[in-house]
């Protein structure tokens, strides 16, 4: 039985420990979708545009949701949003900002740059698992995006 190919979840996170924790949390949440992790905004953009390291990527492998950290080297989360959201082909991909910051202005700016959701990193693994489960459930199962055929 061939399951329909699941769209990947793109995790953009510079801290290797956080990357690992998030990947692990997705696993613990028993989420089937593949999780692709990149370490900064530029790499994420390369992935979306199938450039650089991701030249070989399958065209249909656009992520179902992007989990985005804000503070990153090379290209930060804001800049990434600034590049992605005005591009019509990419605008519909939901972006969930997952950040340490609780600073109102960071949240406001994220929403202003058309982030779809903002979540604060919890400081507790169990809670993190709950969060990624909820993110997956809402953005990958409930939320509808154009199929882009």
């Amino acid at each position: 039985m061939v399951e329909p190919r699941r769209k990947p979840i793109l995790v953009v996170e510079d801290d290797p420990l956080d990357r690992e924790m998030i990947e692990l949390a997705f696993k613990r949440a028993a989420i089937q979708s593949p999780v692709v992790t990149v370490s900064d905004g530029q790499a994420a953009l390369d992935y979306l545009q199938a450039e650089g390291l991701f030249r070989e990527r399958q065209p249909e492998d656009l992520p179902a949701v992007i989990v985005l950290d804000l503070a990153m080297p090379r290209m930060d989360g804001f800049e990434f949003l600034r590049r992605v959201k005005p591009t019509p082909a990419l605008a519909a991909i939901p972006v969930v900002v997952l950040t340490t910051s609780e600073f109102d202005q960071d949240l406001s700016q994220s929403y202003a740059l058309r982030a779809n959701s903002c979540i604060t990193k919890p400081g507790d693994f169990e809670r993190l698992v709950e969060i990624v489960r909820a993110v997956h459930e809402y953005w990958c199962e409930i939320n509808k995006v154009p199929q882009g055929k």
Partner: protein
Amino acid sequence: MRAPLPFSRLSVHRKLILILAFIVLPVVGMMVLYLNTLRQSLAVQGEVDRLFEIQVQAEAILSMVLEVQDGFRGFVLVRKEKFLEPFNKAEAAFDPAIARLKQMVRDDPEQLQRLTPIEARLHALLEKKKRLIDAIRLGELKAAREHIESGEGQNALNTIREDLRVFESIEKQRLSERRARAERLASVTQYGLVGVVIGILFLWWLASRLLARTITGPLATLTAAAQEFGSGRPIARIPVFSMDELGRLARTMEEMQERISRHISQIEAFQAIGQDISTIGPDGLEGVLKRIVETAGNMLRVDLCLVLLWDETIGCWKVGAASGHWHDLLYRSVLIREETPISFKALTTGHPQVVDDLEARPEVVLQIRDRLGGKSLLTVPLRGPKGAFGVLALAPTREKRVFTDWDVRLSQQFAVQAAIAILNARLYEAAQQRGEGLQNRLEELERYATNMAHDLKGPARRMAELASLLRIDYKGRLDERADRYLGWIRETGQQLMNRIEEVLKLARIGTVPEVVEAVAPADVARDVIKGCEGLIEQQGARVRVADWLPKLACNRVHLFQVLDNLVRNALHFSVDGRPPDVEIGVVKQTNETVLFVRDNGIGIPSSDWERIFEPFERLGHKDVQGTGIGLAIVKKIIELYQGRVWVESEPGEGTTFFFTLPLYGDLAGVPVRQEKAGS
């Protein structure tokens, strides 16, 4: 306006002489006339006397002639010597009588001439008679008888008498002519006197008019003008236009009043100037100096004005500012002391130096003259608390200028103000620079601390997450103690995160512009209560909000943070066994509206009333939840709005936090309708 008369050109002294002459001259004339008349009448009187004398003499001569005649006749008849006595007497008297008559008419040759034949006839008669007498004595009677019979003697007598009559009548006629003339003169004198008196009266009137017009009138005008000016009203022109001392006085008064007015306006302008030059604008000290030279130049009407600042370290002048186009040329250039001796003297003596003619001393090198073309120079020291630090140099370049005492005094006063302005500007700049440096360092530190706090939050979170992951993954494989320790690591990490987040919140207050809006505290209080619902329920607490609270002008989130922190604080520090009773209300104090949050908790000793607002200064129980930064956040928010926050408390009884925030009505300038807000 009266046209100037030729008379008005004369000085007051001459005018007075002239006016006096007007009156004195007729009086003198009249006196001369009167004296002349008097003299005439005296002369007439003398003439009458003389005539009388002449008549007497003439009669005497005639009677003597008669006596001679009669005596002779008697002698002839009786030949007695006795009859010759009158003859002899008369012979002796004749000559003196004639001489007297001559004396009387000595000034009249005609009359003198008339006397000569009379005298001759008398002598001839006497001679004849003598000869006849001598003949008689000798006995010769015939000739004598013939003489008598012939009537020769009678004839001679008649002739003499006739001649004397003519003489007399001429004199009489002269006398009557004289008398008539004297009478005419007397009547003329009489009329003349009346005329002169009338004339004097007229002249007196004329003189008084003239006096009024030329002296008393102008004097009154001058007095009025002086009073007018004295009472502070300016007078443009004093209507006294004569060319005399009074006219000059009027011009002098006008000049004086103009000068005084000018000086007054200069003094009035002075205050404004002081304010103007001492205002420190964005151009700082340089702007102040520039305004000083421009203002001084305008005020004293000098085209080149410099502020020279003495530089102790290099022993030279530095041009602080120069008026007009000189500024770009000279600003910050250096002048050496040897080439600016006058300015240097002003600096060292501390007294203004005035040189009316700079060219009078060509041997001395003077930069201001040689390089800038100054014709005269006035330098005034600029004095600070430690003596003169520079000079204000005023050097007209177009023409020489005699600086008056007033100019010097005015510039001295100006220099005092200018010196203060310069010192203030220097202080201000120094303070500004220091302040800016401090501010920059503070901001840098703040940024650094914020970044560091932010960077610390990630590791703390990861620590907590890892600990919780370990507990999950190794559940059952770790002993109970290891599990508990991992739990503590997780909690510590989470506490660290919370604390850092609080610190970041505190640091962020006021750094981002927040929207100020009209906020109803009752609504915010309701949100706060909702947020604390769990805690309230858990403690069985009661939170009351006053029926009416004033609308505030602030950021809603800020007010929420304030009330949230204060309410949580009140709920946390409760007395065991006594359910917290919290009240949010408002009180009117002297002239401000103060909001408060009151509780019945453990209270705070007065020694700690200040300290509790410092970050991390948590007092009392360690086991009470919280980060110890809530009150610091409250204080920082309140102070952001220039408000005040303070505490009053009775340990064991309860605590009241008071705070002020701007009222909405204050902000809009109109009071807002008081609304009822339910709790």
